[in-house]
């Protein structure tokens, strides 16, 4: 009698695990845009991301490349980020444009990311809405992300009143931008 119970329990458990596994592998679809993520330059990160897609996408701070911030990617993958981050249909590797990814789960909460693709390479990753607005998501959203020159806050000498740079000697000051500003004083 005991054997019957044990066998039945084992079979039932195995069945449930199998069902779970099946559901899990079907949910994660990997598109070629995502696969180009791993190939693309900006993502240098290896490994800690989830199935490639997760790593660049789910790190809300673009945990690509920089060694430290892969943390968010690692943790997001482990908390079951749901597969690919690129949701748009077009998986043509030569597609360009901006794609909003699925909302993925990180240990700080759900995050939605946006990736910009140009000529089949990821050129930018941004965390969009962090669906929580409490302290934990603000904290993680302050992490540094790769910045493209074109995306910096535009600044021209005509707009600023002061210049911040590494400390310069008095002599170097003479030929510096700050000196020019001070002289012209805006």
């Amino acid at each position, binding site marked *: 009698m005991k054997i019957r119970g044990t066998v039945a329990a084992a079979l039932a458990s195995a069945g449930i695990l199998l069902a779970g596994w099946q559901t899990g592998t079907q949910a994660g679809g990997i598109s070629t845009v995502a696969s180009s993520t791993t190939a693309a330059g900006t993502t240098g990160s290896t490994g800690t991301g989830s199935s490639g897609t997760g790593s660049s996408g789910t790190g809300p701070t673009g945990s690509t490349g*920089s*060694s*430290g*911030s892969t*943390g968010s990617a690692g943790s997001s993958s482990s908390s079951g980020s749901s597969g690919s981050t690129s949701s748009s249909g077009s998986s043509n590797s030569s597609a360009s444009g901006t794609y909003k990814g699925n909302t993925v789960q990180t240990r700080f909460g759900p995050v939605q990311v946006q990736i910009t693709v140009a000529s089949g390479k990821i050129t930018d990753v*941004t965390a969009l809405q962090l669906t929580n607005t409490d302290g934990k998501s603000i*904290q*993680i*959203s*302050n*992490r*540094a*992300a*790769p*910045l*493209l*020159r074109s*995306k*910096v*806050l*535009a*600044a*021209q*000498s005509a*707009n*600023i*009143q*002061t*210049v*911040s*740079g*590494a*400390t*310069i*000697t*008095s002599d*170097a*000051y003479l*030929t*510096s*931008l*700050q*000196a020019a500003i*001070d*002289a*012209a*004083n*805006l």
Partner: protein
Amino acid sequence: MQQTSDANAATSTLKARTFQCMGTVIGLTMPVDSPTEGQPGFDELGAATAVVERLFRDLDETFSLYRPDSEASKLARGDVKLPQASVQMRERYAEAHEWRLRTEGAFTPERPDGVLDLSGIIKGHAIREAGTSLLALGRRDWCLNAGGDVLVSGSPRPGSAEPWKAGVVDPADRRTLITGYALGGTNRHAAIATSGSAERGEHIWRVGNDGEFIQVSVAAADIVTADVLATAIVAGGTRMLNRAADHWDVAVLAIRADGSMLATPGFQSS
């Protein structure tokens, strides 16, 4: 030595005065009344600058390692021991040490040769004290730049919410800017400091990495935090960058030798 200059402006006029101290140039920029009011506005700037200059020189006398008779040099030679040092010295040492703990050693006042070098924190401290003095003098709108570290108060256009705009130099070309940052106004950050190995950076001791960043700019609510963190991130690399972003309310722009950049949201265009 002070240099002054006038400027043409529509409503208020920004004027600046500079002086040399601590081996660099310190500049105070303030909006003054239009020239029709004449001398009084001009004198206010002069008076304010005098106060700031006095402050800087006093600190330089005590802390400069380039003056053989400063207390710092005496400490370095061993003529004076730290417990017998002045209150000010010990206070700054304590502050520097606290930052050493907070940055897990990325920022440290101890040079590799064992000499105590507080220059990493003195400039920030001087700016901080100068800012306090300026506020005490009743000056609400000003921008103080000491060798690339900036602290502001108020607005370049008094009465408006317009922030001061600080540009960040491009380490590849000192004469151009890579980006800018808004200080004061409605922004909660009033200070920005930049550290780098591009120029004089003796107080940045490498912490076990290969000099990942060549320039780091940190914007924060106070100048000492910005200054220390900028130094710490240059020394500590990405790990320190993440730590700073996690634990302090700062905006960071970090530039690598190859020109690539990392930036927290504050430096990114939205």
